[in-house]
C-alpha cells in the first residue's frame, strides 16, 4: 500500500465538487418528485373505488420490492434516448415515492377522527377537507420522516453513476481509474457526503423536536 497522496486530494476536489452539483440537483429534484408523487399515491390509496386503490397498491409494491439499481438500469434501457440525468431523477423520485406514500399514509391516519367528522358536520366538500384540514395536519406530522428520506436519497445518488450520470461518485471513479488514487478520491467523496448530510440530519432532528411539542 502506498502512502496517502495529498496531491491527488487537492487535484480531484474541483472535479468532485463539479459532480457534487449534479448529486445535489438529482437529490433536490428527486425529493420533490417523491414528495409530490408520494402524497398523490397516499391520497389515491384512500379512494373509494378499488379500480384506483388496487393498481396503486400493485405498482407501489412492485417498486418497493425491486432494487433501485435494477430500476435505474431497466429505465435507462427502456428510454435510451432520454438524458440519463432525467431518468435518474425520475427513477429516484418514483422509487422513494413508494416509501414516502407510506409516511404520508401514517400521517393521514394520525389525524384524529374528530377532524373528519367536523369537516362532515360543516359540509366541507372532499377537496376542501383534504386541502384545508387533513393534509396540513398530516404533512406537518410527517415532515421529519420525509426529511430523513431526502437524506437517504442523497446517499443513494451514487447509483446514478451506473447509468452514466456524472455525479460525484462517477467523477471519483473516473479520477481514481485515471490516476490510480482510489483511496484518496473516495475518502474525499465520503467526506463531502458527510459534510453535506450531517448538518442536514441535525436540522431535521431539531425540526422533529419543535414539531413534537
Amino acid at each position, binding site marked *: 500500500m502506498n502512502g496517502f497522496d495529498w496531491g491527488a486530494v487537492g487535484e480531484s476536489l474541483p472535479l468532485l465538487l463539479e459532480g457534487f452539483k449534479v448529486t445535489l440537483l438529482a437529490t433536490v429534484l428527486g425529493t420533490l418528485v417523491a414528495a409530490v408523487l408520494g402524497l398523490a399515491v397516499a391520497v389515491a390509496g384512500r379512494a373509494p373505488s378499488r379500480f384506483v386503490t388496487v393498481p396503486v397498491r400493485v405498482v407501489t409494491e412492485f417498486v418497493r420490492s425491486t432494487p433501485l439499481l435494477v430500476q435505474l438500469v431497466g429505465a435507462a434501457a427502456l428510454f435510451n434516448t432520454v438524458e440519463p440525468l432525467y431518468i435518474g431523477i425520475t427513477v429516484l423520485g418514483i422509487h422513494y415515492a413508494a416509501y414516502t406514500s407510506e409516511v404520508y399514509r401514517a400521517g393521514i391516519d394520525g389525524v384524529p377522527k374528530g*377532524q373528519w367528522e367536523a369537516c362532515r*358536520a*360543516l*359540509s*366541507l*366538500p372532499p377537496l376542501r377537507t383534504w386541502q*384545508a384540514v387533513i393534509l396540513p395536519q398530516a404533512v406537518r406530522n410527517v415532515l421529519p420522516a420525509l426529511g430523513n428520506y431526502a437524506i437517504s436519497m442523497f446517499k443513494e445518488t451514487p447509483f446514478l453513476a451506473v447509468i452514466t450520470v456524472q455525479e460525484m461518485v462517477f467523477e471519483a471513479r473516473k479520477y481514481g481509474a485515471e490516476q490510480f488514487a482510489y483511496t484518496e478520491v473516495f475518502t474525499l467523496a465520503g467526506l463531502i457526503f458527510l459534510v453535506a448530510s450531517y448538518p442536514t440530519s441535525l436540522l431535521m432532528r431539531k425540526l422533529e423536536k419543535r414539531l413534537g411539542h
Partner: protein
Amino acid sequence: MATEPLPLQKTESADPGPAGAPEDAVPAAGSTGEPLVRFDKVVKRYGDHVVLDQLDFTVDRGEHVTLIGPSGSGKTTILRLLMTLEKVSDGVIWVNGSPLSHVRTPGGALKPAGEKQLRESRKKIGMVFQQFNLFPNMKVLQNITEAPISVLGKDREVAEVRARELLELVGLSDKVDAHPSQLSGGQQQRVAIARALAMEPEILLLDEVTSALDPELVAGVLELLGDIARNTDITMVCVTHEMNFARDVSEKVLMFDAGRVVESGTPEKIFSDPSHERTREFLNAVL
C-alpha cells in the same frame, strides 16, 4: 355579555323548505303539521348489537330537546345519525318532510343517499362535539369562516364580519388571531359553538358539550347555550349529563334506555314526577 341581545338573526325562513331541500320532498307532509325532525322506526345496529331499536320520536321547529339516559343508551347515536355521521340500519329520519339520508327512486321507494346528497342535507344541521374538534392548523377566525366561504359561498369579508360578531357573542373577541391550542377547553368549545352557528343551521346538535371541560368552565358554556336557546329560533337537540341545563333550557326531555325512549315530557314532569321506574333510578343516580 350574556344579557345583551344576541347578534343572531332568527332564521330567515319561518316557512319550511330551505334552498337546497331535495325536490322530492314529500308534498303531502305539508308544512304546518309536520314536526321538523321525525324518526320513523329508526334502527341502528353495529354488527349484532342493536343500539337503537325501532325508534320513533319527533322534534318540533324551534323546540329544545334534551336526551338523557345512561351511557350506551343510544343518545349520542341519535345525534350522529342526524348529522349523518352514521348510517341508519333501518327506518327513515325525516327533516322538514324530506328524508335526511335517503333519496327517492323513480319508483317512489327510498334508497340510501349518496355522499353528495348527504352534504346537502347536512347544511341545515350543525353539531358541537364533546371534544370540540376545532381545526388546529387554522386560527380561530378561519375556523369559523372556512365553511361559510367554501360551502355557502360567502365573500371572505362578509364571513369575517359575521365571524367577529359570533366571537363577540361567545365572549372571545380578543382571540380572533389565536390558534386553538392557545385556548382553554371552555374557550375552544365557545369557538366550536360559534363555528356551528356561522353556518346558520336550523338544527343545532350538542353532544355532551361540557363533558370534556374543567368544572369551573362548564357554567359559562351552559349560560351561552341558554342565551342562544332563548334568543334564537334554532332548534336544539342536546345530549347532556347536566340536568340543570336540561331543566332550564329545554321544553322536552327524553329519557333513553337500551335504545328506546323510556319516557318523555316537560322537564318539570320528568325531573319532579317521573312516571317510569327506570327514569327514577337514573335521576337518583345522577342528581
